[in-house]
């Protein structure tokens, strides 16, 4: 009874040279944060070559936007980085406002800054949760979700949505905040430093955490610039580039905050940077509450529809064509300035840029989204080649990518 055991086994047999073999990680792998596929060429556990494949979530936003009015495309920005949709909304609105020359009232600016920072905290919480889980620290994951839940509830109270907000409008925001909202946010701000301490107790000086993060995935400042990294990934390498400081938008030039910088450019430095950003965002939130001025929440010259609040200006309800209750925007050609513009904002992941070309019609002639995640995944091979599989996971975590934003 000798059954040839090796008959069907072809796993370890080299499909490259020598002992090399390839592993296709993803797109349904638990640690690839969505639908990223990474083709790895391995020698034992050492990564010789890493080729990321993206596009599984490509929806063609650039093309869709060309066929919609500026106000209609706002909802596309929700679907970019769905972890921090609010920051994307604000980024989109800031870009369109600059293009169309729309002014924003001060109160709306403060409100936007506030929701941006809330969304930064929410996004960083999810980053910390998944990053820690990737490295194996399970409890941090659930602790982070506890706080994220509070923020999502706040968002829900503010605009009725928990994931795709579309709260900012071109020229302002949709709804004003209530007293209850402010109180609840104040409570969050007061409690958050304590919670932060809790996460830090779990991992900050944990030996294993340090072993897994210090000196892994090192990028010098020059290398990080070269790869086009932005956000905490660039600042972790010691380059002081934060769009909130460099090209302030909304109320960022009116609030006081610091930009935390790392020095070593490894995973731990990036981790520390983001942990410091928690504190700074919390500070900004506090200032927004304290300084929030009274006044209108949407500009007089806002070109877009503001349902129910601002009446039916420029809005036509055409129930025969679109079904009851749906609202169609009138196209206004010849009214908008023509030209091109690139405006970027500091979203939690990095620099989110919108490049618009307007030909004077009510729709953008071309919209291009520069998404940080796209560039960051492109930098993955530079980070991991020569390291072990376990480091790949840690590196994907530290880049903080969202595939919805990467693939657009």
């Amino acid at each position, binding site marked *: 009874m000798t059954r040839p055991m090796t008959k069907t086994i072809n796993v370890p047999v080299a499909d490259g040279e020598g002992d090399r073999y390839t592993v296709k990680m993803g797109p349904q792998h638990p640690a690839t944060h969505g639908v990223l596929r990474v083709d790895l060429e391995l020698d034992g556990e050492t990564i010789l070559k890493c080729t990321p494949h*993206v*596009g599984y979530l*490509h929806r*063609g936003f*650039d*093309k*869709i936007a060309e*066929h919609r009015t500026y106000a209609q495309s706002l909802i596309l920005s929700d679907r970019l980085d769905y972890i921090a949709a609010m920051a994307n909304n604000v980024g989109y609105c800031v870009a369109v406002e*600059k*293009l169309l*020359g729309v002014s924003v009232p001060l109160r709306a600016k403060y409100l936007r800054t506030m929701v941006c920072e809330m969304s930064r905290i929410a996004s960083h919480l999810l980053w910390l949760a998944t990053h820690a889980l990737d490295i194996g620290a399970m409890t941090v994951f659930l602790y982070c979700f506890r706080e994220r839940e509070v923020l999502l509830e706040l968002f829900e109270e503010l605009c009725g949505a928990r994931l795709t907000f579309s709260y900012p409008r071109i020229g302002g925001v949709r709804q004003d905040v209530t007293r209850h909202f402010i109180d609840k946010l104040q409570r969050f701000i007061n409690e958050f430093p304590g919670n932060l301490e809790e996460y830090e107790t779990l991992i900050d000086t944990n030996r294993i955490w340090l072993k897994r993060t210090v000196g892994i995935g090192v990028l010098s400042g020059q290398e990080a*610039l*070269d*790869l*086009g*990294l932005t956000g905490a990934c660039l600042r972790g390498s010691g*380059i*002081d*580039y934060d769009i909130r400081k*460099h*090209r302030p938008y909304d109320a960022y030039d009116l609030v006081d905050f610091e930009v935390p910088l790392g020095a070593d450019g490894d995973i731990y430095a990036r981790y520390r940077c983001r942990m410091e950003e928690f504190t700074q965002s919390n500070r900004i939130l506090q200032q927004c509450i304290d300084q929030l001025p009274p006044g209108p929440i949407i500009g007089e010259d806002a070109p877009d529809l503001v349902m129910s609040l601002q009446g039916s200006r420029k809005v036509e309800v055409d129930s025969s064509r679109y079904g009851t209750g749906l609202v169609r925007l009138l196209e206004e050609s010849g009214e908008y*300035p*023509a*030209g*091109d*513009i*690139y405006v*970027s904002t500091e979203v939690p992941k990095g*620099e989110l*840029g919108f*490049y618009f*070309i307007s*030909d004077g019609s009510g729709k953008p*002639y*071309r919209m*291009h989204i*520069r998404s940080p995640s*796209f*560039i960051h*995944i*492109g*930098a993955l091979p*530079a980070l991991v080649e020569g390291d072990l599989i376990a480091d790949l996971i840690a590196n994907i975590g530290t880049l903080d990518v969202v595939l919805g934003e990467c*693939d*657009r």
Partner: protein
Amino acid sequence: MESMEVARRLQEQFSEEVLDICDFQGQVGVIVKRDKIVEMLRWLRDSSDLRMDHLMDLCGVDNKNRPEANLQRFEVVYNLYSIPLRHSIRIRAQVPENDPCVDTITTLWTGADWHERECFDLMGISFTGHPDLRRILLPDDWQGHPLRKEYPLKGREEWSGLVELQRKAVELHQFDLGKGILRQPAAEQSHTKGNDKS
């Protein structure tokens, strides 16, 4: 330094190459020929008083329906920023329709790699000297370049991968598997099959 001044400096340095300078909402774009794009960007990056070290964005544009007369069919737009000196500029390299290609700038910024692949994928502009110019967002066997103006918003036909999947679903349908998936297309497919037979 003001963006306009950067543009002037660029015009002085590469007077042959610079075609036009345009200013819109405080942002300055320089329209240039494509031939010396790498040298220009290198000069912008390495000059000690400009130091445009951050490539913010790179994308392709189809100028087919644009009113401006002096533009070629395509252009590649480079948005540069100087982190130490805090000024920015936009370079718009003109690319003709009959030969849509530009020299790659991956030699200057490795991060331009994926930008250029995206531009190639969606706009069909190829980059000479790019180390790995493949489609990135769309499947490898995709036909056409969706961001060109003549490409319809809704595709002419289904992507071959989806057609294959639908065929598979029909196949599985015989064995009472795949019942829930793609019921509608499955019905359509079997319909067309019947037509073929007759």
